[in-house]
């Protein structure tokens, strides 16, 4: 994931993809889903695959809600493939049955998935390809 190098006054030239920063609060999960679905639709994913990306982003962000830091999401779409990266801190929901179910659901709906939560940092990356 790319993070701005310095605090310059203008946006970086020709950025690729979309970056969304939200508070680690459940009230912002809907916006994360909207951004996910918008990216997936722009890349040309079908209705079911868009729902899959929406669910995956929502569940992964939910695992980071309730933490004291925000959540940073990056969405990129190229060649019929969506790549979503996220970063935050593990929230209380990461433990327990719902956290387990969340991961089962995400693994079932995305292509490649990496999710790590160590030392108070949580990161994920997943891809979803257009069906051919």
């Amino acid at each position, binding site marked *: 994931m790319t993070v701005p190098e310095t605090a310059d006054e203008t946006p970086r030239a020709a950025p690729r993809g979309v970056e969304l920063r939200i508070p680690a609060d459940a009230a912002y999960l809907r916006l994360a889903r909207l951004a996910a679905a918008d990216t997936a639709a722009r890349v040309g994913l079908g209705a079911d695959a868009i729902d899959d990306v929406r669910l995956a982003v929502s569940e992964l962000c*939910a695992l980071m809600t309730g933490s004291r830091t925000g959540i940073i999401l990056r969405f990129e779409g190229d060649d019929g493939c969506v790549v979503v990266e996220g970063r935050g801190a593990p929230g209380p929901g990461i433990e327990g049955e719902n956290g387990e179910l969340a991961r089962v659901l995400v693994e079932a709906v995305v292509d490649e998935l990496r999710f790590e939560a160590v030392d108070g940092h949580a990161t994920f990356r997943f891809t979803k390809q257009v069906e051919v």
Partner: protein
Amino acid sequence: MSESQSSPTFAFSVERDGATGTVVARGEIDLASSPEFREAIHGLVDDGVRRLVIDLDAVSFIDSSGLGVLVGALKRVQEQGEDGGLVLRGLSGPALRVFEIAGLDQVFVLTS
């Protein structure tokens, strides 16, 4: 019938007829909206409802927290004894798919 709306994109209504309670949910059930949904369902069971119908026809999204509420509801009505039961009505589209992935379409009684 009572109406409730916790988030701009989730709402539900509750109807009660003797020991039967019907909850009609609309919109998106996620970590933001599921607590209020859970509370309403628990309230009905605590209040003597034994047969629960939860209508999910107009639910466009459900996440693991929403599934947790429904699994919890099933356990609660079953704890009420032989006459306790839960039916999920109108489950379709993206919400049904989440149930299938979780294997919960086999656990619940589904009707159209």
